[in-house]
């Protein structure tokens, strides 16, 4: 695809994403009916859940890309890995902030150490440490490898976390939770959720694409800098 065609494609994708976001916003605020028990505040759910889902998709891509990098040392793999981690962390942050905003009026507390919240917080810290590792290690051939290895540790750790924390929470008196917001959705609510999901996934995809291209451009810059340094010495 030529450069001009690529930018047209990108502009189109960006426009489509914006459209999806606006449609989703309409459905979340107006299109979806007000929930019977919780009231208006239940609408936070239309951002809270798709954000988590998008984060998981992004992290999944990070894991896959990291494994691919360790196998093939492909710079494209590394670019995808960092894109997945950053975008995933952004969406997980949305999830972690919308949660307490919803929880405070509904549960009376900002936070509980139940299985799902603890796991989500643990994941946030993990991928934040991944980005910090990348920030603190010198760019070169080592940084992508270290980051990819760390990502593999997360991939092994998260399922175990899920099991262990789940068990931990069933052993101790769990805080009283209302039935999860995904228990029994009215059809128009489901529509709103799906629009939001589509919008968030589109945005995640767009942001990852941008970050991915940027990472490759950064690699290119580093390479040409090195070339120039050698040329200057000659």
């Amino acid at each position, binding site marked *: 695809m030529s450069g001009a065609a690529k930018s047209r494609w990108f502009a189109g994708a960006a426009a489509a994403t914006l459209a999806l976001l606006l449609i989703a916003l309409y459905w979340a605020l107006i299109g979806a009916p007000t929930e019977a028990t919780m009231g208006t505040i239940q609408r936070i759910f239309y951002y809270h859940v798709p954000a988590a889902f998008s984060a998981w998709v992004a992290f999944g891509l990070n894991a896959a890309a990291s494994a691919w990098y360790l196998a093939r040392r492909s710079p494209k793999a590394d670019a995808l890995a960092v894109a997945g981690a950053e975008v995933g962390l952004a969406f997980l942050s949305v999830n972690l902030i919308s949660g307490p905003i919803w929880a405070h009026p509904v549960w009376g507390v900002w936070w509980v150490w139940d299985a799902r919240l603890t796991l989500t917080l643990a994941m946030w810290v993990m991928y934040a440490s991944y980005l*910090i*590792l990348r920030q603190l290690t010198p760019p070169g051939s080592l940084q992508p490898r270290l980051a*990819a290895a*760390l990502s593999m540790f997360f991939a092994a*750790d998260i399922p175990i*976390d899920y099991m262990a924390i789940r068990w*931990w929470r069933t052993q101790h008196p769990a805080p009283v939770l209302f039935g999860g917001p995904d228990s029994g959705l009215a059809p128009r609510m489901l529509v709103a959720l799906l629009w939001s999901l589509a919008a968030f996934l589109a945005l995640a995809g767009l942001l990852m694409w941008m970050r991915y291209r940027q990472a490759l451009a950064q690699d290119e810059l580093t390479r040409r800098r090195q070339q120039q340094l050698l040329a200057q010495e000659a």
Partner: protein
Amino acid sequence: MPSWRIAAAVAARDLRIEARTREALLAMGFYAVLVMVIFSFAFAGDASLTGLAGGGLLWVALLFAALVALDRSFSREAAESSWTGLLISPAPRVAVLAGKFASSFVLLLGLEALLVPLFAVLFNAPRSANWGGIAVTVLLGSWALAANGTYFAAMSAHARQRGLLLPLLLLPVSIPAVLAMVEATQAYLAGGGMANYWLRILAGYNVIFTALGAMLADAVLEAE
């Protein structure tokens, strides 16, 4: 040279250095005791502390001490030409890492030999506590901390702010292990029944992450 020989040599060298300059051992031990004392104030000196938060307190102290031990394990190497020589040699990375792990593991066990009895005294651990079970928990828990800790210490050795990065990398990944250690210790102290389940999680964790660290050893040990 067979891998296990390399590992043993690396471990022996590390332990010899630690034994010679005993200051580090004493400092770590004192540090861990201090952590236990300070944290005990957080629980208002309640006599029933052992049953409620005791297990957690012991492992927090051990975690802090472990971070110090692990950081030392690699910070020394940067200056040593023998280390670089080892990395340039065809010695398999796993062997070098295994040696590092072994020395850290032994160090931690030594520390625990001091801390666990002290803990039992300071926090009035019940005589009915299952000390055999606690010993196994300490063994498995130290293995988990030493294994992942060695790997992430090697990883953060390449970075700026090494001392900051190590806990940042180690602690999130160790969450299920720490959970299991604390819960098992609690159960053994209180005489509850869940301990076996937690020990199995801990053992499984050790198998998975030791294998993972061994498989990915080449990623973290590179001469620059």
